[in-house]
């Protein structure tokens, strides 16, 4: 049997799991492991400029590929710098493996140099964590970590590795386990047959049905089943921020996003529905608005792999715990064998009503308010320039909502954003993680001048590894969403939402060897996008787009109201 050191076992185990890239930053406690990385070529390491970016890179890759991203950082500050990235992945159920170095075992608890209790600090934001106490356990721990991270409801797993577990001169027999079994962990593999039948009957007999689908459909690889079922039922479908792309946005049955900044037709249809089929969505407070006023007439069916998501915020009538793909397959199966068909007359009048709602607002914004480029127009321009084919990552704020509303996602895994935690600084590193792995595809980070500065140092990593992502910055000189709230709820008192002293973006990115383009007027947009994707196809391009600073994101739900209570513009309320 092969004899390997702990450090070598760690790297080899990652290779056995199919890992191609590790995103990370070396340091004292992981030097043995980094030396083991150096001495092989199967697993490559990407040196970021800040550990938070490593976590977001791994996360972006995971969201695009469905496979776990791997982060490697040293103990103490290296480990704590990943916390925001771990929390981001945890909130959105993204599979991730975080390997954190730890001080020598005999020093743990002595407040040693670069010691922190990573297990303790990360505990509330991981699916599980391991601390290595014997180098011989490393292969099994890695196997278990990948299994936990990727099965059931996915999530991040931390492996904390004390330095003495990786000593190069101590070698052990290495064999990678083929199977793993954890007695306390058995994710469901099938939904309850009776409940599934009940769900189908409810949907078939509904007069005003709606499908409310979320990120779980994408994570569960169930978009094909969702599309089929939606079409079979001829039901309208709305998607959460995390679920965009699971159903084609350009399809007639799609009502777009729902919730706080959801479309008028989606929120109205939800409010008036008599049966809601919730698929892989968790009734987030950004979706439901006031739960007390949530969809008063609806019987709710909820499919989720995580039982704790069911009836957490909204009481559910038909709970179905199981993997979305398998449950939807079962539903399709029952539907095909059933004599009853959806009520065509009822659906016709339901669709008529929905079309009227669509006509009233349906993605409307005023293009010629004050001559400035509207952020919505910029996003529509980006959608056209990329043919709707790009991977779009975003940061957090107005630009994120405009991208969600106006970039029509027709395919899953293409819209990559921090939905649950709302992490500014996510967009650029996430885009890098994707571009590195999908080199032939367009990868665009839609950001704002506030968000991009939170991880701007990664322009350097892009240069070192030749990662030609496109950065599309909607620059309004303000923290736009904060400003919007201050406009609407604080009588326009812009407390700390104006950012002075912005850099000359073109010079900044040029100093890193990249290309910068300024867009100051409407007519420059098309040319800039053309240069971005054609002339500078293989370069990192930062497109700095000056947009109307006073624009708000609409619709916007009235706080503590029902789904249907919305502002449709600065002056119009439902």
């Amino acid at each position, binding site marked *: 049997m092969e004899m390997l050191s702990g450090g070598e076992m760690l790297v080899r185990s990652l290779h056995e799991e199919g890992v191609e890239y590790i995103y990370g930053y070396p340091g004292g406690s992981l030097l043995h492991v980094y030396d083991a990385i150096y001495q092989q070529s199967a697993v490559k390491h990407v040196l970021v400029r800040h550990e938070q970016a490593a976590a977001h890179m791994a996360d972006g890759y995971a969201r695009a590929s469905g496979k776990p991203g791997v982060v490697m950082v040293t103990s103490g500050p290296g480990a704590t710098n990943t916390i925001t990235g771990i929390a981001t992945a945890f909130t959105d159920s993204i599979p991730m493996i975080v390997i954190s170095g730890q001080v020598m075992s005999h020093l743990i608890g002595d407040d040693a140099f670069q010691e922190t209790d990573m*297990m303790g600090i990360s*505990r*509330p934001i991981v699916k599980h964590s391991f*601390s290595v106490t014997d180098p011989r356990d490393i292969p099994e721990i890695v196997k278990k970590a990948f299994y936990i991270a990727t099965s059931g409801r996915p999530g991040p797993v931390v492996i904390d590795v004390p330095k003495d577990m990786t000593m190069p001169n101590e070698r052990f027999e290495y064999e990678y386990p083929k199977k793993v079994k954890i*007695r*306390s962990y058995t994710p469901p593999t099938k939904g309850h047959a009776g409940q599934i039948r009940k769900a189908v009957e409810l949907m078939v007999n509904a007069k005003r049905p709606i499908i409310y689908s979320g990120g779980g459909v994408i994570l569960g690889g169930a978009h094909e089943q969702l599309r089929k079922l939606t079409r079979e039922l001829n039901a309208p479908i709305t998607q959460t921020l995390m679920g965009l792309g699971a159903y084609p946005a350009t399809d007639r049955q799609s009502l777009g996003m729902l919730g706080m900044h959801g479309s008028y037709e989606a929120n109205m249809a939800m409010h008036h529905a008599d049966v809601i089929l919730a698929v892989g969505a968790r009734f987030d407070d950004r979706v439901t608005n006031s739960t007390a006023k949530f969809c008063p007439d609806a019987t709710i069916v909820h499919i989720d792999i995580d039982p*704790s998501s069911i009836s957490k915020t909204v009481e559910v009538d038909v709970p179905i715990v199981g993997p979305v793909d398998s449950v939807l397959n079962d539903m399709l199966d029952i539907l095909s064998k059933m004599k009853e068909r959806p009520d065509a007359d009822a659906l016709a009048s339901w669709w008529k009503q929905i079309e009227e709602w669509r006509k009233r607002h349906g993605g409307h914004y005023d293009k010629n308010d004050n001559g400035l480029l509207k952020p919505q127009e910029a996003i529509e321009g980006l959608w056209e320039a990329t043919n709707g084919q790009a991977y779009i990552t975003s940061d957090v704020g107005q630009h994120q909502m405009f991208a969600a509303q106006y970039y029509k996602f027709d395919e899953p895994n293409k819209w990559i954003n921090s939905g649950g935690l709302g992490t500014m600084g996510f967009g650029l590193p996430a885009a890098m993680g994707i571009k590195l792995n999908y080199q032939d595809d367009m990868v665009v980070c839609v950001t704002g001048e506030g968000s991009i500065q939170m991880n701007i140092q990664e322009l350097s990593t892009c240069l070192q590894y030749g990662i030609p992502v496109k950065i599309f910055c909607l620059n309004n000189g303000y923290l736009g969403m904060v400003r919007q709230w201050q406009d609407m709820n604080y009588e326009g008192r812009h407390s700390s939402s104006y950012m002075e002293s912005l850099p000359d973006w073109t010079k900044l990115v040029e100093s890193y060897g990249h290309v910068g383009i300024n867009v100051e007027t409407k007519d420059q947009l098309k040319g800039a996008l053309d240069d971005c994707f054609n002339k500078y196809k293989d370069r990192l391009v930062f497109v700095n787009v000056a947009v109307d600073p006073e624009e708000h994101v609409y619709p916007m739900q009235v706080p503590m109201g029902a789904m249907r209570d919305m502002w449709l513009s600065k002056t119009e309320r439902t």
Partner: protein
Amino acid sequence: MRRIISILLENEPGALARVVGLFAQRSYNIETLTVAPTEDESLSRMTITTTGPDRVIEQITKQLNKLIAVVKLVDLTEGAHIERELMLIKVKASGAQRAEIKRTADIFRGQIVDVTSNVYTIQLTGSTDKLEAFIDAIGENCILETVRTGVSGISRGEKTLSL
């Protein structure tokens, strides 16, 4: 409503912290908590008493079940069960009081486990209610110190919480 949640837990470092952290992080209250290894030394058995509306209790049990370290869990209050708590109580006992306290302890089947000329230390086991009743019976004035273990619970009859 008061509930007794009984948990089989992997006997590994950090497992208790995961359970306690879950309660703290979600603002659930732990009223009492007892934990010790079981006959199978790879497992710990934990009894938690908590209070809350049914919805909250349901969330607590679901969230606990999600922890990888939690092997099995049961809400004992859903069926017939036995609960016991141990209390050591140190009371003033001098003069005429002495006999009275001894009699009360006997009625509650308590044992006097330490004696000085002015003080009795009494050991008492039973349900939380019984321990409360004893404290009421002897009156707060004579109590010097109490220490309680928190509830341990087990199902009645043949039902077991095991692998």
